[in-house]
């Protein structure tokens, strides 16, 4: 017997020379929704959108209808999926977003067929008059960082007896498109709340050493270089690997590279889970999770991360403890005010990436809830 079933039906009619009408229905065990989209030809712009619910899951799902109008004006071109996921999925409903993408894809298929038909019609009496429509290339969103006043200081010496607390997981707007945090702002905030250092772990991007050295001097603050690399087994925080990795890499391949460079790998938010159900519902126990391939190829586990639930952090903590692996803490900050929510305390001095790698290898780090224990 099927536990779950979803059916989607889309149909496209050319209701005017320059207008497609797309009708889509999504019906599954949880939701029933419909959508009617008007799309102009040949521009492929969404001109109108009507939608409604037949069945829903929460009493407030009705609120999703109004924000769907944000789709009007969008064009069916490369980058549409990201746009729809950012606006419609988040502000309205991800199931409407899914249906909208289906409707748009159906319209695109139809328009290609229509242009072939039109060309054939034109060719018959007089020859070809192609319209040559091509999608615009998507424009990357490049974030600029506000410059902070130059201080040109050397990093402050820290009291070695007290150790140092470093936020090991921070994203900057310069290196991670998903972050809104300028690097200068992050450093200033980290200094203000009393952190000893931060580690820049942008997605698949390592900061150049000279740029980070400039930041250290400018702010008189310890800034380290790391990387959050997406593997087939999820995200891995890597320290001590001095090159960018593009695309998705197999975990074992990454391990080989990192070991060759003498670096370390930490499983980032390993149990970042689903939104409405959890490990317990799946029957996932820490013992079972310890068998994962992931944990055979890392040096530590991120057990405090501010982007996951307390249960997910606790679960990661149990797995790390069960495996006898060091746990680390990092905010996973994507905005300035998130830096230092969680961090890692090291007993000795950390001056650079080499010190950090050695300290992680020795299992010296202790994860701490930093910001919430301070008056900020």
């Amino acid at each position, binding site marked *: 017997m099927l536990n779950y079933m979803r059916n*989607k039906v889309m149909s496209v009619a050319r209701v005017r020379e320059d207008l497609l009408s797309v009708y889509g229905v999504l019906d599954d065990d949880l939701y029933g929704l419909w959508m009617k989209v008007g799309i102009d030809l040949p521009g492929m712009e969404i001109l109108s959108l009507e939608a409604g619910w037949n069945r829903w899951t*929460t009493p407030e799902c009705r609120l999703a209808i109004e924000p769907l109008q944000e789709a009007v004006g969008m064009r069916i071109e490369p980058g549409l999926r990201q746009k729809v996921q950012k606006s419609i999925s988040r502000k309205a409903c991800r199931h409407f977003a899914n249906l909208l993408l289906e409707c748009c894809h*159906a319209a695109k298929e139809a328009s290609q067929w229509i242009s072939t038909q039109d060309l054939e019609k034109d060719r018959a009496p007089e020859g070809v008059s192609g319209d040559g429509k091509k999608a615009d290339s998507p424009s990357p969103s490049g974030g600029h960082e506000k410059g902070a006043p130059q201080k040109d200081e050397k990093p402050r010496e820290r009291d070695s007896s007290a150790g140092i607390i470093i936020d090991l997981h921070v994203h900057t707007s310069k290196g991670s498109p998903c972050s809104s945090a300028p690097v200068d702002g992050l450093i200033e905030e980290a200094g203000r709340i009393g952190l000893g250092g931060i580690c820049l772990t942008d997605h698949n991007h390592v900061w150049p050493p000279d740029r980070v050295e400039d930041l250290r001097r400018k702010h008189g603050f310890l800034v380290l270089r790391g990387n959050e690399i997406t593997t087939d087994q999820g995200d891995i925080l890597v320290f001590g690997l001095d090159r960018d990795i593009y695309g998705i890499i197999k975990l074992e391949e990454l391990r080989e590279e990192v070991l060759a460079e003498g670096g370390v790998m930490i499983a980032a938010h390993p149990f970042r889970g*689903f939104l409405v159900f959890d490990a317990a519902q799946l029957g996932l126990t820490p013992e079972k999770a310890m068998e994962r391939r992931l944990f055979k190829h890392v040096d530590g586990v991120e057990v405090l991360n501010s982007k996951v639930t307390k249960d997910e952090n606790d679960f990661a903590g149990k797995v790390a403890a069960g495996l006898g692996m060091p746990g680390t803490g990092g905010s996973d900050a994507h905005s300035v005010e998130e830096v230092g929510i969680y961090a890692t305390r090291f007993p000795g001095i950390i001056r650079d990436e080499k010190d950090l790698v050695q300290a992680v290898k020795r299992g010296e780090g202790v994860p701490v809830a930093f910001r919430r224990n301070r008056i900020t």
Partner: protein
Amino acid sequence: MPRVTCFSRSRCTGVEQLDDQTIRSFCRLQDTFMEAMVEITARVPDLDITAVRGEIQRSPNTETPEPTPLLEKVIGVRIGAGMQKIFEGLLEGTGLCKQLIFMLEECCHGVILSFTKGTVERFPHDEEEAVEYLARDVKKHIRLYNRCAAFAPGSRIVEGIKPPR
């Protein structure tokens, strides 16, 4: 102008629990130009993909490579947060039809929704009680906050709940 359709598509996704440790999900597509299917099996409770196969029965593109060996690159990937990025990274540029990548995602979303169904079945039937129940859920899973219109400011569900930092 007569309103005869110039394109039609139906897509069906289904999920079946084969045994305590195995779940199967399939996605079938039938449209004016194409007919295809993708099927995965995943291991419970980790939800890592243990097998995958794809088939294109009908397509305007005659140059499409055999899909299964390409799709098999995702064996071992866990169904869950971040999977779309991993699938795209592993499969885009391999020559695999993009439609099949989407169908693979649909199979995985089906698996997730099959578990969500269990959660939704526990929602109280009374509207006010359901709002309270969901509010407790948002407090527990704060990532739900602002996830969609139902969990955004203006909704009764998140009334009085402090937004996450």
